[in-house]
C-alpha cells in the first residue's frame, strides 16, 4: 500500500517515531539503524533493541562510514535472534541483497526499511559539519520537495553518490524494501510519503492510502536521469583515459598497496583473501629472478595484479557504494574504475546487482546455450 504517514514535526522525527512504533509494537525485535555517536560527529549503524536509544537515530544523516549491508551480515549470517528492521540507503540495501546470494547475509528475518538517499558526504566532511554546527539534514530536506539534491555550500558529495543512478529504494531495477520512505519531490511537511508491502501493517501504522504525487515521480525521474548522464560521462572519461596497459599502470601508479579498498569493499567478503595468504609471500630469490628478467621489480610486487584480480572476482557484483574510494589514502578513483569495469561485465550478462535475491550471481551459474569459444 502506498500513501501518507502522519507527520510528527519533520521527516526525521516522523521516521524516528515510526521506528519506535515498529520496535515497541513488536513488528521487529531489533532495528539496524544509523545512530549519532555521543559527540555527534559521526553516525554509525547500530543494532538497537532498546527504543530509548532511538532518540539518537539519524536515518537521514548524509554519511556512510560503513556499508550497513555488510553489518546486516554480522547480525544475521549465523542466526538472527529475531526479526530485524534494517534502515538503509539503496546502495546498502543492494549490498545486502548481493551478500545474501553468497550467504553472508540471511534475509529470512529482515524487513528492509528503505530511505530516499539525498546524497552522502565523506566521514571527515560530515564530522566537520558537526564541528561547525552546520545542519546538512535540514538543508537536504528543504531542497528535496523541489527535487533538488545538492551538497551544502563548500562541500561535495562522495564521488560515488554523484554517479549513483539508483538513489531511491525499489526504483530502477532495485529490490523493493518492505517499507519505503519517500522524501524527494514530496511537498507535504505534515506527512511522510510511504510505501508498505504489507497492507495490514500499513493500516496498523495508520497509513492513509494515496496515489504517488506526480511531482515525486517527476523528481525521481529527473534525478535518475541526471545521475545516469553524469555516470555515463565519468565512465566514458575513464574509458578514454585508460585505453592501454601503460595508461592502466598510470591509473594505479600512486597505489600504496594498503588494500583498504578490498577491506572496505562489502562485496569482497572472502574471509581468506588470496592476497592475504602465503601465496604472495614470495621467497626472496623469486624477486631476484623477476628483477633479472624484467630489469627490476616494483615492491611490494603484484600491485596491478591485486586490482585486476579484484575486478575479476567482484566487479560483476559491484553495487557502486564507493567505500573503496573513501578508504583510498592516495585518492585513486577506485569506485569509478570498478563501476566502469563492473558495468561492462554486468551489462554483458544482463545482470543488475541488488535487483533480486533470487537472481544468481554471474559466476555462480551458467547457461548451456550461451557464449562460445573465445579468442580469435
Amino acid at each position, binding site marked *: 500500500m502506498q500513501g501518507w504517514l502522519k507527520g510528527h514535526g519533520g521527516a526525521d522525527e516522523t521516521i524516528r517515531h515510526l521506528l519506535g512504533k515498529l520496535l515497541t509494537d513488536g513488528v521487529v525485535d531489533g532495528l539496524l539503524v544509523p545512530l549519532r555517536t555521543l559527540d555527534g560527529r559521526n553516525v554509525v549503524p547500530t543494532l538497537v533493541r532498546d527504543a530509548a536509544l532511538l532518540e539518537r537515530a539519524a536515518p537521514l544523516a548524509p554519511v556512510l562510514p560503513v556499508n550497513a549491508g555488510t553489518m546486516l551480515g554480522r547480525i544475521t549470517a549465523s542466526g538472527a535472534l529475531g526479526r530485524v528492521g534494517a534502515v538503509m540507503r539503496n546502495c546498502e540495501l543492494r549490498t545486502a541483497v548481493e551478500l545474501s546470494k553468497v550467504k553472508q547475509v540471511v534475509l529470512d528475518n529482515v524487513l528492509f526499511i528503505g530511505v530516499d538517499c539525498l546524497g552522502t558526504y565523506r566521514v571527515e566532511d560530515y564530522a566537520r559539519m558537526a564541528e561547525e554546527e552546520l545542519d546538512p539534514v535540514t538543508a537536504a530536506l528543504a531542497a528535496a520537495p523541489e527535487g533538488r539534491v545538492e551538497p551544502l555550500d563548500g562541500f561535495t558529495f562522495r564521488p560515488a553518490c554523484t554517479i549513483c543512478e539508483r538513489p531511491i529504494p525499489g526504483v530502477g531495477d532495485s529490490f523493493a524494501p518492505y517499507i519505503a520512505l519517500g522524501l524527494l519531490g514530496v511537498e507535504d511537511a505534515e506527512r511522510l510519503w510511504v510505501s508498505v508491502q504489507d497492507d495490514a501493517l500499513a493500516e496498523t501504522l495508520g497509513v492513509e492510502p494515496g496515489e504517488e504525487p506526480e511531482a515525486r515521480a517527476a523528481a525521481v525521474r529527473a534525478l535518475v536521469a541526471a545521475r545516469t548522464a553524469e555516470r555515463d560521462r565519468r565512465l566514458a572519461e575513464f574509458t578514454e583515459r585508460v585505453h592501454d596497459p601503460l595508461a*592502466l*599502470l598510470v591509473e594505479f601508479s600512486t597505489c600504496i598497496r594498503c588494500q583498504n579498498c578490498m577491506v572496505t569493499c562489502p562485496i569482497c567478503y572472502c574471509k581468506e583473501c588470496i592476497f592475504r595468504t602465503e601465496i604472495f609471500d614470495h621467497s626472496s630469490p623469486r624477486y631476484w629472478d623477476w628483477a633479472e628478467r624484467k630489469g627490476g621489480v*616494483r615492491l611490494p610486487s603484484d600491485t*596491478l595484479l591485486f586490482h*585486476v584480480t579484484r575486478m575479476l*572476482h567482484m566487479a560483476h557484483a559491484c553495487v557502486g557504494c564507493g567505500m573503496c574510494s573513501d578508504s583510498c589514502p592516495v585518492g585513486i578513483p577506485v569506485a569509478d574504475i570498478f563501476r566502469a569495469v563492473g558495468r561492462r561485465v554486468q551489462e554483458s550478462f544482463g545482470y543488475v546487482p541488488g535487483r533480486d535475491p533470487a537472481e544468481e550471481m554471474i559466476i555462480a551459474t551458467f547457461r548451456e546455450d550461451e557464449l562460445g*569459444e*573465445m*579468442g*580469435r
Partner: protein
Amino acid sequence: MTDFEPRIVAFLCNWCASTAADLAGTSRMQYPPNVRVIRLMCSGQLDPIYVAKAVLEGADGVLIGGCHPGDCHYQSGNFKARRRVAILHQVLGQLGLEPERVWLRWISASEGQYFADTVTEMVAVIRELGPSPLRGQWSI
C-alpha cells in the same frame, strides 16, 4: 619483429585438452614449441587470477582448453570456466589489456590434431599482434 617468438601459457584440463596435447605429442604431430602447458584437473578450476598473472607478467597469449560442452568430467566445470573467461574478456577489454590474446577452446581427448592446429593458429595470430606490451614492464 621477425625474431619475436610468442610465449603462450596454456591452462588445459586433465581429462580432455591436456590428454589431447599428450596425444598430439605421442602421435608425433608437429606444432610450434611456443606454448607452456599448465595442467588443471578441470577448466572449472581456473581462477581468473591465473590468467591475470600470466597476462600482467607479459605472456603474449593465454590458451584455456577444456572439454566440449556437455563432456566435462565434472559435469559443468567448463561452463563455469566459460563465464569466467567471458568476464576476463570484458575486464581486460575495459582496461585496454588486449583480450584478443586470451583464447578459450574446447578440445576433446581424441582431438590431438585440433590441439596442434589450435596452437599453430594461435602462434600465427599472436605473432601478428606482436609482443605483449607488458613484457618489459618492471612497474606492475
